[in-house]
């Protein structure tokens, strides 16, 4: 089972000497990201909470992007996707990415529509 590991992250900018070192490096990265998330979640900086982008708080965008970054490193380095063949990796990653993006789009669009129905029409729900 001699398997070769690609030992660099950040597109080759951070190189490791061995696979074990890379694992600890990725752990540090994930811990730092989690710490940033938690600190932002506790402080809730005014400037990020009250500014919006595409109808969502800037802070929430930051959380979601950091989550996807974390997911990337878990999948690429802990689950060894970095070492798999490119075609195999694409099958595994792009299939759910496409399907999940689609369901997010239709469901949230529909939910927003229902929100407006509850808000503007003659349906009493808050009594």
């Amino acid at each position: 089972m001699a398997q070769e590991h690609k030992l660099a992250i950040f597109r080759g900018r951070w190189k490791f000497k061995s696979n074990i070192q890379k694992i600890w490096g990725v752990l540090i990265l994930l811990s730092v990201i989690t710490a940033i998330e938690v600190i932002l979640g506790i402080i809730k900086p005014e400037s990020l909470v009250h500014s919006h982008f595409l109808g969502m708080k800037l802070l929430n965008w930051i959380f979601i992007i950091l989550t996807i970054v974390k997911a990337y490193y878990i999948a690429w380095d802990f689950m060894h996707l970095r070492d798999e063949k490119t075609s195999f990796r694409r099958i595994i990653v792009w299939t759910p990415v496409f399907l999940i993006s689609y369901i997010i789009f239709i469901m949230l669009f529909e939910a927003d529509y229902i929100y407006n129905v509850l808000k503007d029409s003659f349906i009493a729900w808050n009594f």
Partner: protein
Amino acid sequence: MDSTVTTVAEENVWGGGNNKPLGASYGKMMIWFFIVSDSLTFAGFLVAYGFARFKFADSWIIADEVFTHVPFFHGSYPMYYVAFMTFVLIISSVTMVLAVDAGHRMDKKKTTWYMFLTVLGGLVFIGSQAWEWATFIKGDYGALETKGGRIIQFQAADTGERLALKDFAKTIPGERVNHERKNGVWYYGDKALPSYSLNEVIEGVKADPNVVVRVEQLTERGEKTVLSREDSVKKLDEAVMVVEGANLIHNEYGNRLFADLFFFITGFHGFHVSMGIMLNIIVFFNVLLGTYEKRGHYEMVEKVGLYWHFVDLVWVFVFTFFYLV
């Protein structure tokens, strides 16, 4: 027809033989396909949460007000405990990946140790989640529920601090007592009564001018709306019952869908973690017994590892959408 005949020895066919499409062995490819389909299931659940949240965008629960407890500490510490849980799961992911690495180098002793630590991390996580559930079910301050299922909470008018029902509810003698099973022969008990009756809470609010009502509706700034004293007393007319804690039908923290989805999604994730712990224990014993040593490779550690990392991956998303966003 010739092209379909495998030329490998019969006993290897179950393992996919020597044909390795895309460079992955049969087992590894299948666990990946399982992970892909399972990620779609979790995505469906989380999108359902997003749906409920967008539908009730201006009255949804503020998670920071719900998960504020840390075991053995009093006071309000939002986020800290979940952050700890997330960290535990990431650490157990790291020990798992170290076990896989040790397995590749055929290092039985290290693989055993790392598998043991992974199981330990999983148990700490699942225990924390059980505690989190228990705290959520038990409830915090208590609230009233209106006919339409909306929640009325209370806070002090001067300090703005949340008030628990016991802080102001009156004790009115002669109220109904909980009928327990031991008191009747053919009557098998009834539902547990809340600590205070609706009347006791309402009279308590009326007697104490410092109590005001918070409703679910969010203000422009994303905080819960606090009614004036007059409106607060008027709002009490809509209340029909006292709610303490959360379950699938009532939820003192706010929208009941939040509790439903919380139980469902973290429960489903916790179920995955439990299964992961079981698989890890099985692999741990197999490593200990030398099964993989005899087989010549530790690929099973890697396959179970993939599942374990996936559970971690899902938690990263659950953490974001339930606690952060």
